[in-house]
């Protein structure tokens, strides 16, 4: 018998995947606002992907979408699981991937290592699913604006916070945004519900249309003493 055991995916494959797909859609439509994931598959032992990332993998991937796993996520058990439930081919280099799953963002390749789409078909770009934490206790470190942000036409910026990214990330993001209509889209997935105390694991969408800057401290706030 094979040493790799097969484990179940979603409890209700159709309903759960539809609900998770809706959450991913909402996350990308409202950049910067965390969206709770309504369903999670059972955790996979000895896997580099959190339950939230696994939920997205089972929802988004199929036999047409080559996927790339970073070194932290790429285990034989993980491959077996995704091959069984999603039937996805695996891309050996990031440029060939439709979906990239990044469990350890500090070691991730630069954003331009992923497929930005083609001028005639910008939709052929990669979507990056990145493991991160959105800790609100530290305050919101950054803000973004663009389509989907309420009041973006009146210069409104939406504050958000994503921790655990490499130092070069936001500089790369500027270039990614500037390349519009080409560029990659990102969905951040909270590593676990315990990290933030939220009731459910949440997603945060960062489509290529989002312009991000460091949050400027407003003058009205009392200075720290």
């Amino acid at each position, binding site marked *: 018998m*094979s040493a790799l055991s*097969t484990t*179940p995916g979603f409890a209700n494959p159709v309903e759960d995947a539809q609900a998770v797909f809706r959450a991913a859609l909402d996350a990308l439509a409202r950049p910067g606002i965390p969206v709770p994931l309504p369903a999670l598959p059972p955790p996979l032992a000895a896997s580099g992907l959190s339950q939230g990332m696994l939920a997205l993998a089972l929802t988004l991937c*199929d*036999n047409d979408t080559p996927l790339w796993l970073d070194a932290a996520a790429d285990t034989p058990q993980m491959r077996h699981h995704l091959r*069984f439930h999603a*039937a996805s081919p695996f891309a050996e280099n990031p440029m060939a991937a439709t979906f990239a799953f990044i469990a350890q963002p500090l070691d991730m390749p630069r954003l331009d290592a992923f497929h930005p789409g083609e001028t005639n078909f910008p939709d052929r770009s990669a979507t990056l699913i990145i493991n991160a934490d959105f800790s609100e206790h530290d305050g919101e470190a950054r803000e973004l604006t663009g389509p989907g942000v309420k009041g973006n036409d009146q210069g409104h910026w939406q504050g958000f916070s994503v921790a655990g990214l490499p130092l070069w990330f936001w500089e790369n993001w500027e270039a990614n945004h500037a390349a519009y209509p080409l560029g990659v889209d990102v969905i951040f997935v909270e590593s676990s519900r315990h990290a933030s105390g939220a009731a459910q694991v949440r997603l945060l969408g960062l489509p290529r249309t989002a312009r991000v800057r460091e949050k400027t401290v407003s003058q009205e706030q009392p200075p720290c003493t």
Partner: protein
Amino acid sequence: MPQTFQEAGAGARSTAPGMPQEKTQVDRKRRMAALAFADEATLEAEAARLADAFSYTFLRRPEAGLVMLEGRAGNSGQRFNVGEMLVTRCVVRLEPQGSGTATEGYAFIQGNRPRHAELAALFDALLQQADWAESLDRSLIAPLMARRAATLKKRAEETAPTKVDFFTLARGEDE
């Protein structure tokens, strides 16, 4: 909702080769074929007879979809698509009784037959466990194969008398 199946290697895991001296020992492929051709009532009755002796969980619940059948003209020409066939597939995981390892049972059944696929997958899993294989081969697989052989034989016998040999009569027009 029918969907298209694209899956590498499901159910293709090979089992130990059957021992030739035991007549009831057939390999997994033939067992799976026997289960696929079986009628649902037979499988249901056998499962009811053995109920409570095992427990299993779904790895993939029965789901119907389409598979593309491919053919070759004369079994040697270019591959071409014959057409799509409705198939129900199911995968179960059978927990072992006492010692032994858990086994995974696969089934691909023609038509939209969720219960048949579930039962066929269950028996495929049971047949991979040594404790069950021998008795099930005798009580279930052998009768199923005998019935299948009888059906094929009957069909062949019904078809044979209708065979027409075409030949051309010399019509003598040249004379």
